[in-house]
């Protein structure tokens, strides 16, 4: 730039000197005026050329700066994608693991809960059965004592008076014992009936619990679907996290297109999977249809 300006000044000076010599040679006012005009014209031309050159250089510099800015934008944008991809991938991995743990804990808790309810129901049923058997055994015992007593009575008829007296006393004693046994038998029978009623109630309640605890099966399916989606997103963000070394606009656009293709692939894959099978919104029991 400086060399060009210097040449321009030198050229203008040389032209000025030549025109001055020309004017002096002819020595007329008209020629001097014409030379002065030509000199001004030459200076104007040089100024114009200088301005043009300066403008062109300025434009070229601006374009260079702009290209450098674009590259910087692409690099920074690319770096941001990598950071975002890595961060999201980490978060989604944690979410995926946490959902899996939630599912496992929930499943374990419900399985234990159901087992315990069933054990309680089975226990009460067993107790009720045993009480029933015991009641029958006591009843049988009373019947046995009754028949033994009756047999003894039959045998004592026609015996000596002292024996008859002793037998009468024994009979009274046995009768009293029988009264106690019958009362005991009634209590046992009543307890057996009560236990039976309790067992029925427990079983009914367990059946109600069964309807409610099925939420685990539904929530498990919902969690599994959420995990599937998280897993797909995780893969996309993981790919983003790997990044690309694109330094120009074309490579950068190709990289974006690659992410988009991966996203579309996962979306298509998720769409192919069955739609969410759990549409239930409350614990009302489902429909039954026989074909």
């Amino acid at each position, binding site marked *: 730039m400086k060399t060009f300006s210097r040449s321009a000044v030198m050229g203008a000076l040389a032209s000025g000197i030549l025109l001055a010599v020309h004017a002096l040679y002819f020595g007329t006012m008209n020629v001097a005026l014409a030379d002065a005009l030509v000199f001004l014209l030459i200076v104007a031309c040089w100024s114009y050329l200088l301005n043009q050159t300066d403008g062109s250089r300025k434009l070229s510099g601006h374009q260079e700066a702009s290209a450098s800015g674009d590259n910087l934008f692409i690099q920074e944008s690319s770096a941001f994608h990598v950071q975002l991809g890595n961060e999201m991938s980490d978060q989604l991995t944690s979410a995926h693991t946490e959902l899996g743990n939630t599912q496992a804990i929930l499943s374990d808790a419900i*399985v234990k809960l*159901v087992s315990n309810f069933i054990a309680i*129901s089975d226990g009460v049923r067993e107790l009720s059965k045993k009480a029933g058997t015991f009641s029958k055994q006591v009843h049988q015992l009373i019947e046995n004592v009754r028949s033994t007593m009756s047999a003894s009575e039959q045998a004592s008829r026609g015996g000596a008076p002292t024996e008859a007296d002793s037998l009468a006393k024994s009979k009274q004693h046995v009768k009293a014992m029988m009264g106690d046994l019958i009362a005991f038998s009634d209590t046992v029978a009543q307890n057996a009936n009560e236990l039976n009623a309790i067992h029925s109630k427990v079983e009914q309640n367990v*059946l109600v619990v069964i309807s409610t605890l099925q939420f685990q*099966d539904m929530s498990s*399916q919902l969690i599994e679907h959420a995990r599937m989606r998280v897993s797909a997103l995780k893969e996309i963000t993981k790919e983003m996290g790997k990044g690309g070394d694109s330094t120009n606009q074309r490579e950068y656009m190709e990289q974006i297109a690659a992410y988009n293709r991966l996203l579309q692939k996962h979306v298509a894959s998720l769409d192919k999977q069955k739609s969410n099978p759990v549409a239930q919104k409350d614990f009302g*029991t489902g429909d*039954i249809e026989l074909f």
Partner: protein
Amino acid sequence: MAKNILAVDDSTSIRQMVAFTLKSAGYTVIEAVDGQDGLDKAKSQSGIDLVLTDQNMPRMDGMTLIKTLRGMPQFSATPILMLTTESSDEMKTQGKAVGATGWIVKPFDPHKLLEVIKKVIG
């Protein structure tokens, strides 16, 4: 003699609940953890009076199980009930097409389940 029911579900808790409900009513229950296990047990056990199966299971789903069982002469007339969270008409139509006898949507009411089973196998 107690009737035999094959209960197929990948959820342990659902299998427990189904087995408890059916056993309480006097049925004998054979449990299977997925469609493939259900098919294996159906092949190895004789005298299965009813199959109760879930739809969404690993290895083999309920529809495939029903289709496969219907292809076996011993199961051509055995009642097969689907017990699933799926409630769409589209799925029910598919179930009917592959040979399901009925469709029960979870959560099931134990009393209603027993009513249906009684209706189907007595």
